[in-house]
């Protein structure tokens, strides 16, 4: 008989619209991070490192890149005879068919999957945070307290607490109340979106609330369990945890990796992060290259200068080009004599000679200042920027652009240039 003590359900269906062009073709969990990784590598590696070998990944928005990345789970040792990783997209049913309408609705639609492993506990994770966490320790906490629901929380500065779901606990870590994005927070313990449920409690809550539109953990399931009198506990986590939901937090989290001794250290032997590596060869730095305070992925060829940057795998940076404070993702090619300042350049981009990115004054973005800000230049995947173009701060380029698309070879700050069509 199949029996798993704890299985994990990883919510990876969200778009993550605040990452702008970077999630227009891929789901947020599949966005690359820290040179060679993708965001989903962190929760998946946490699972296998915590001894959780059964993971259902719920996908919905643009799943292609995510599906190919996960495959049968070989990089995370999740290719198992029983369990392992399973991708769970929404599916058609005889009576009704619907998309995943909310986080808990997605889990509800996969009750059969969970049931087949006969679990005692179910771990609910989201696929868009950067952290290392031992879920087994959290499970021990759950068992010790006789909890039915345990919510991982982390202390945040009081002034930021109003951005989060806040848990109010007693001295035994038992949750007495909670509030969603409160004006005047009564505590600074923010929910990290990581839950352990005892299986029967979860199943009962999902079945009872099945008809609720947009069934959500934070809005419906947790309040329901609390109202039913189930013991809810808050598991306090004090390690590194980063939400990379906005361009600036994404940029910052990447830049933290290049500190001399980074707070989030990928070089520790303990608690490795795994990813699918398609590119194996070493990187080459030419006689004229200068690289300082940067990390660079496999197979890249650097002929120019790179400072304070995170460079992916298979990237080429031409001679005479200077890259500063930027993130460049896999397989992108930057030709010679370019100047790249504080830019995020997605995968498979071609930037031709003498292009300058991030030039001039910082101007607020014309339509989406809540997405494109902090002076970051965003270049979407498979884009082409032709020779000699200058692009200002807070601007966006996406698609195959040609010289005619620019006025006098210039895209001023705060503008978007988005063209349909992929690079051939």
């Amino acid at each position, binding site marked *: 008989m199949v029996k798993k003590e704890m299985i994990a359900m990883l919510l990876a269906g969200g778009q993550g619209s605040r990452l702008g062009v970077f999630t227009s073709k891929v789901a947020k969990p599949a966005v690359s991070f*820290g040179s060679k990784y993708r965001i989903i590598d962190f929760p998946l590696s946490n699972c296998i490192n915590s001894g959780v070998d059964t993971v259902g990944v719920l996908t919905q928005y643009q799943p292609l890149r995510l599906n190919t990345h996960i495959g049968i789970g070989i990089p995370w040792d999740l290719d198992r005879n029983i369990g392992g990783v399973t991708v769970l997209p929404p599916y058609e049913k005889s009576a009704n068919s619907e998309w995943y309408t909310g986080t808990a609705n997605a889990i509800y639609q996969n009750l059969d999957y969970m049931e087949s492993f006969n679990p005692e506990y179910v771990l609910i994770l989201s696929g868009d945070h950067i952290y290392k966490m031992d879920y087994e320790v959290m499970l021990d906490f759950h068992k010790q307290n006789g909890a039915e629901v345990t919510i991982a929380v982390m202390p945040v500065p009081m002034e930021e607490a109003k951005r989060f779901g806040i848990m109010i606990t007693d001295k035994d870590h038992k949750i007495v109340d909670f509030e969603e994005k409160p004006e005047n927070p009564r505590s600074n313990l923010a929910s990290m979106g990581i839950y352990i449920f005892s299986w029967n409690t979860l199943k009962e809550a999902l079945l009872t609330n099945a008809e609720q539109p947009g069934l959500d953990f934070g809005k419906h399931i947790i309040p329901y369990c609390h109202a039913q009198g189930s013991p809810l506990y808050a598991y306090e986590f004090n390690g590194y945890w980063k939400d990379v939901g906005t361009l600036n937090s994404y940029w910052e989290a990447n830049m933290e990796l290049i500190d001399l001794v980074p707070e989030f250290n990928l070089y520790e032997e303990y608690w490795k992060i795994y990813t699918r*590596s398609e590119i194996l060869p070493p990187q*080459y*730095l030419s006689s*004229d290259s*200068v690289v300082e*305070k940067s990390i660079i992925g*496999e197979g890249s060829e650097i002929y120019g200068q790179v400072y304070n940057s995170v*460079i992916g795998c298979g990237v080429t940076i031409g001679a005479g080009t200077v890259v500063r404070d930027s993130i460049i993702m896999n397989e992108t090619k930057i030709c010679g004599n370019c100047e790249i300042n504080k830019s995020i350049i997605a995968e498979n981009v071609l930037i031709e000679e003498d292009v300058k990115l991030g030039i001039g004054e910082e101007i607020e973005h014309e339509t989406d200042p809540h997405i494109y800000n902090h002076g970051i230049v965003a270049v979407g995947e498979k884009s082409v920027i032709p020779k000699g173009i200058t692009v200002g701060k807070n601007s966006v380029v996406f698609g195959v652009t040609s010289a005619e698309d620019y006025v006098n070879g210039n895209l001023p700050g705060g503008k978007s240039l988005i063209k349909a069509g992929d690079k051939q």
Partner: protein
Amino acid sequence: MAGGNNRRIKELTQKRAVCAMPIAGSYRSIDFALSNMSNSHINKVAVFTQYNAGSLNEHLSSSKWWDFGRKQGGLFVFTPAVTAESSVWYRGTADAIAQNLAFLKNSHEPYVVISSGDCVYKLDYNKVLEYHIEKKADITVVCKDMAPDVNVDRFGTIKMNEECRIEEFEEKPVVAKSNTISCGIYVVRRRQLIEMIEKCAEEDRYDFVKDILIRYKSMKRIYGYKIKEYWSNIASVDDYYKTNMDFLNPEIRNYFFRQYPDIYSKVDDLPPAKYNMGASVRNSLISSGCIVNGKVEDSVIFKKTFIGSNCYIKNSIILNDVYIGDNTHIENCIVESRGTIRANSYHKGENGIEIVVEHNDRYVI
């Protein structure tokens, strides 16, 4: 054929078989032959190993890296075993096959490709096989013309007639009559191979080259298939050094790393290479998991190496997982893997390449 060791490569093979030698930052020598086989759609591969197979067995721990491990075929590793009939080591290449002849006999594939594991090359064996069939050859030997200035006295040299049939084959000649050498890659019909190996074993002969190729060269139709692409053998310190340094050449990198088909290797799950303030790297290959604080020039740095502040590394090869303390000078050296070099050390190969093996205590925080 991955059993070998030899004294020409000195201390480097005290720890491992030649074919487990690290190559080009991220690979091991045997990856090239295995990837070629996988890319040629050969899905049943036997590896014969006996000398110090630890590193090799670790590397071959799973066959999935080369996409073997199918229901049909797979990757088989044969080490010498004590049986009712024999309790000897592999006494030669032919003997290694002879001791495992049941594997060959129980297979159904019509042809066998034999390759040594200590060569760096890309080759589609199907092309050799087509040639083999077209020439109606008994054995086809892959060979290469070496540049006139290369000393070929450690290879087998070949002389062919205009039809490419091999007329002369000399193993490690004192004075070479030709600069065409055997690459140690052969194609032969399976039944033919079984027959010859059995005959050899009866006569207590053990070596594939000496006792089969050279003895049979007039009786059997042995043909040479010339390759023009890159091929390099790493079985001496100088060749090993040169082969690694060849990868600093953009054409060779492009040929191996960017052109179809790829070379595969075991994935090590290492983080990206990291360059801190003060790092200065010129014309070098750096592998994943490295942390560089010092100066590196014209060198190949393998995986997971730590280079301290104010170091100077030139014309050197640093193998996997080496820790180099601050203010160290390393020039014209090969630093053995897992070494720990104390701060303020000085190593310089004065006449040729120096091999540095240092195992000091390492303090890791």
